[in-house]
């Protein structure tokens, strides 16, 4: 059978690998990505496993790579994106090289960073000094006359002498701008107002050497008198982290010093730019290799993590691993193993043993880019049990179709098709978009679903004859006006009787004349309701029939008779019969007939007839009509209802009684010396150890659920009608309320008004009708599949196959 029909057969294998070949073998297996390893050391702590040191080494490498990466990002160098030639896991020699390389780069980076910080703080000091010298120019212009002494540089004796002479001393420095006011107040307090402070704010911020953040600073000069005060001021300055700089009071000296500082700054700038250049050169060379290194380290780490799942042989001569492998891929795995041994030149080959097991294997559906989206829709409900029939295969068509029934509009469908086709045609280019956000990933992952939904919506739009709520007269309407001019002019409403005003049938879809009719909605409602019930019953019958495929595959033949037959009978005799009545009504009543009981006026309501059938009731037909559509209908209906009612106890008791009898027989057989093991291994049913009472209760729940859900699910399919009605009405309202306004404008402004209103109409169409309505139709379709279709046969109790694959690991990391 095909790949999609049910999940692949899996085998539990035991792997014996030589320790020296283990690394390369697992690396090969990771490249193929078709093996799921099982943890054989569940009880062992993560820190006591065999390859902990190697994993630690990888962690260390990863840390270094992360550090270098942040440095590279800080410098604004773009890392190359490698997707075409992904490197393989490194072999031991490469690992050592890689480690040495990373070590060297890291230490170089750290050294450079330290030097840079040193030089930058040097630079900062010098700039501050320069600023001080430049800014104090103004402060001193008047003091120059007084011939103040720079108390900073002057020795103690001189200073004391100066004070005796009544000279003022001063300190100059730089302080953070936000501290200035507190600083000023403090100075004022300690000196009781005897300190004179002058300050000027620096316009440009200086850069913090360590972090690079801008800091705003202020230059200040404090004048004072007396040695004591000076000491106190200095203490306050250190308390406020103000840096003091020597500042000569004479103009010429200051000029001299500024010149000096400037040359030193220039030198420092040169050195700084050279270090910067060196750093970016180092980073640029590293950045070329960094992505491939990081992939190599990730692969290496994954390999050691996997090897930690292996068991050591008693003699320590080989590693033993257990894994699930799809039986189709066994040769691939064997080749990978031999490649792995050959790579290290091992003489003893690794080998693979398939072992029998009673465990349920994982579920693996091989998908391609087209089916993956649909399979994801199914898996979101529950991963199929092993070898269970896979609904994704049918979903490929039924999903877009049921969506389109609700979203039937040629124009909106075309928008979806264009969007989907663009994503499908440019998929290679678009697949490279990494950070498109979650919404984009959802759209892109479902590109084939969107394309198919659009195509089907175009088809149903053609059937409904809706293009943005307008109809197309492709083949010429089959209705014509049979009234003369005066009748038309005097009557506001006229009826077109089908027997005199219509010839033939419109070849495809709805006749466009309905767009102008007043009773369009009444007609469409009854038509679409019937359609949705017909599709619903077909869909559910198909679902119930799928259970036969499961029963025959799992060899539960008894269940076909005990579960499938009563279920399908119940569904067909009640709702299948209702569908039959719809078709019969369409065929048997005719406007052109002269036979009274077959005219449209006599056609009975299918719903009323169905209710009467269930309640064994009668309604009086109108005069000259028959209550029933054909002879012996009442008897037939009665028989159908009775058989359907009989199905309920059949479902309720059949299976538990069958289990009871088989159990008794088995006990007999065991008594006579036969062993029941073989039958058990066949997995006839999973109720082997359940007590009888529970089986009865389970079956009762199942039966009640099925009977009730048959009714509620049929009604649930009416959402097909409801949403398609809502969609058609909404698009009509949008046309009438928005676009019509633009079209009805006359005169010169008409065209410009139309231009603006058309733009608004476009946006509303996209946002409300395509996006919002599309989403709601999508969700309802999803519900119809999950609840109404899949509940008829799908168990969904399996667990997914998660192979050890480098590709999945790397993709998964990027998504995080």
């Amino acid at each position: 059978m095909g790949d999609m029909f049910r999940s692949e057969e899996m085998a539990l294998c035991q792997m014996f690998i030589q320790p020296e070949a283990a690394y390369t073998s697992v690396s090969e297996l990771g490249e193929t990505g078709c093996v799921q390893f099982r943890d054989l050391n569940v009880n062992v702590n993560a820190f006591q496993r065999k390859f902990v040191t190697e994993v630690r080494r990888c962690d260390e490498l990863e840390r270094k790579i992360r550090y270098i990466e942040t440095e590279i990002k800080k410098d604004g160098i773009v890392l190359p994106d490698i997707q075409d030639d992904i490197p393989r896991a490194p072999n031991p020699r490469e690992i050592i090289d890689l480690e040495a390389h990373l070590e060297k780069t890291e230490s170089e980076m750290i050294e450079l960073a330290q030097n840079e910080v040193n030089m930058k703080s040097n630079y900062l000091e010098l700039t501050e000094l320069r600023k001080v010298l430049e800014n104090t120019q103004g402060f001193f212009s008047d003091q120059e006359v007084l011939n103040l002494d720079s108390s900073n540089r002057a020795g103690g004796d001189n200073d004391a002498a100066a004070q005796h002479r009544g000279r003022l001393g001063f300190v100059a420095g730089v302080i953070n701008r936000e501290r200035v006011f507190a600083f000023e107040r403090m100075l004022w307090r300690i000196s009781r107002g005897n300190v004179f402070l002058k300050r000027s704010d620096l316009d440009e911020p200086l850069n913090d050497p360590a972090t690079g953040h801008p800091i705003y600073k202020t230059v200040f000069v404090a004048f004072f008198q007396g040695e004591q005060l000076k000491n106190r001021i200095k203490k306050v300055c250190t308390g406020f982290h103000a840096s003091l700089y020597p500042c000569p009071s004479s103009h010429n000296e200051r000029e001299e010093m500024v010149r000096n500082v400037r040359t030193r700054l220039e030198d420092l700038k040169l050195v700084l730019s050279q270090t910067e250049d060196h750093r970016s050169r180092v980073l640029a060379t590293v950045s070329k290799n960094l992505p491939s290194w990081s992939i190599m380290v990730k692969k290496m780490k994954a390999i050691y993590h996997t090897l930690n799942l292996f068991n050591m042989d008693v003699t320590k001569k080989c590693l033993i691993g257990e894994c699930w492998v799809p039986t189709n891929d066994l040769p691939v795995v064997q080749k990978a193993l031999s490649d792995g041994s050959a790579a290290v030149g091992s003489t003893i080959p690794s080998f693979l043993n398939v072992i029998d097991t009673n465990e349920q294997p994982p579920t693996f559906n091989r998908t391609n880019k087209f089916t993956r989206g649909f399979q994801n829709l199914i898996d979101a409900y529950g991963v199929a049990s092993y070898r269970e029939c896979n609904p994704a295969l049918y979903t490929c068509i039924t999903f877009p179709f049921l969506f389109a029934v609700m979203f039937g509009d040629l124009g909106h469908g075309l928008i979806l098709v264009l969007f989907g086709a663009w994503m499908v045609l440019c998929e290679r280019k678009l697949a490279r978009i990494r950070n498109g956000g979650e919404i984009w990933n959802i759209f892109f992952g479902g590109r084939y679903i969107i394309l198919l939904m659009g195509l089907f919506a175009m088809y149903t739009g053609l059937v409904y004859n809706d293009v943005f709520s307008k109809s197309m007269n492709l083949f010429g309407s089959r209705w014509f006006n049979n009234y003369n001019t005066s009748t038309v002019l005097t009557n506001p409403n006229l009826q077109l009787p089908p027997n005199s005003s219509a010839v033939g049938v419109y070849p495809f879809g709805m006749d466009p004349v309905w767009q102008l009719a007043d009773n369009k909605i009444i007609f469409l409602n009854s038509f679409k309701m019937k359609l949705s019930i017909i599709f619903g019953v077909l869909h559910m019958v198909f679902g119930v029939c799928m259970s036969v495929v499961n029963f025959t595959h799992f060899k539960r033949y008894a269940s076909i008779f005990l579960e499938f037959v009563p279920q399908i009978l119940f569904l067909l005799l009640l709702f299948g019969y209702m569908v039959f009545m719809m078709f019969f009504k369409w065929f048997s009543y005719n406007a052109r007939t002269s036979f009274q009981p077959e005219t449209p006026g006599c056609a009975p309501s299918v719903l009323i007839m169905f209710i009467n059938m269930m309640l064994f009731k009668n309604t009086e037909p109108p005069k000259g009509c028959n209550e029933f559509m054909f002879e012996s209908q009442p008897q037939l209906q009665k028989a159908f209802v009775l058989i359907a009612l009989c199905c309920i106890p059949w479902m309720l008791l059949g299976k538990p009684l069958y289990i009871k009898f088989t159990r008794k027989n088995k006990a007999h057989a065991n008594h006579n010396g036969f062993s029941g093991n073989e039958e058990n291994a066949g997995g006839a049913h999973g109720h082997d150890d359940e007590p009888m009472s529970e089986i009865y209760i389970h079956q009762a729940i199942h039966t009640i659920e099925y009977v009730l859900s048959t009714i509620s699910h049929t009604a649930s399919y009416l959402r097909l009608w409801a949403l398609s009605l809502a969609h058609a009405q909404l698009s009509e309202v949008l046309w009438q309320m928005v676009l019509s306004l633009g079209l009805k404008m006359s005169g010169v402004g008409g065209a410009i008004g139309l231009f603006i209103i058309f733009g608004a109409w476009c946006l509303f169409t996209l946002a409300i009708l395509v996006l919002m309505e599309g989403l709601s139709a999508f969700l309802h379709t999803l519900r119809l599949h999950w609840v109404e279709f899949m509940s008829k046969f799908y168990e969904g109790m399996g667990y997914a196959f998660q192979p050890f694959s480098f590709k999945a690991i790397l993709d998964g990391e990027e998504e995080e």
Partner: protein
Amino acid sequence: MKICGPKLSLCGLIISVWGIVQLVLMGLFFYINSVALIEDLPLEEEYHSLEDFYAAANRAYNQNAYNCWIAACIYVLTLLLSAQQFYMNSRVTAN
């Protein structure tokens, strides 16, 4: 010269193309007096005679057809504008 960003220019591009295609077609349908579009004509509730009505309807059909085509022409302008902007933006990101 850059006025709008990459997203706005793309949006303008798409709506312009859509507007040109749909408005040219709708103009055509108005021009051939399509009955499906009769509800979108600027007509009054009542007319004195049938001839009056026909004349008014024909006038309105032609008027609407021209309006649609003129609006389509404006969309050609916005198409050119947004195409130029889109080109500028793509060149900026390429550099």
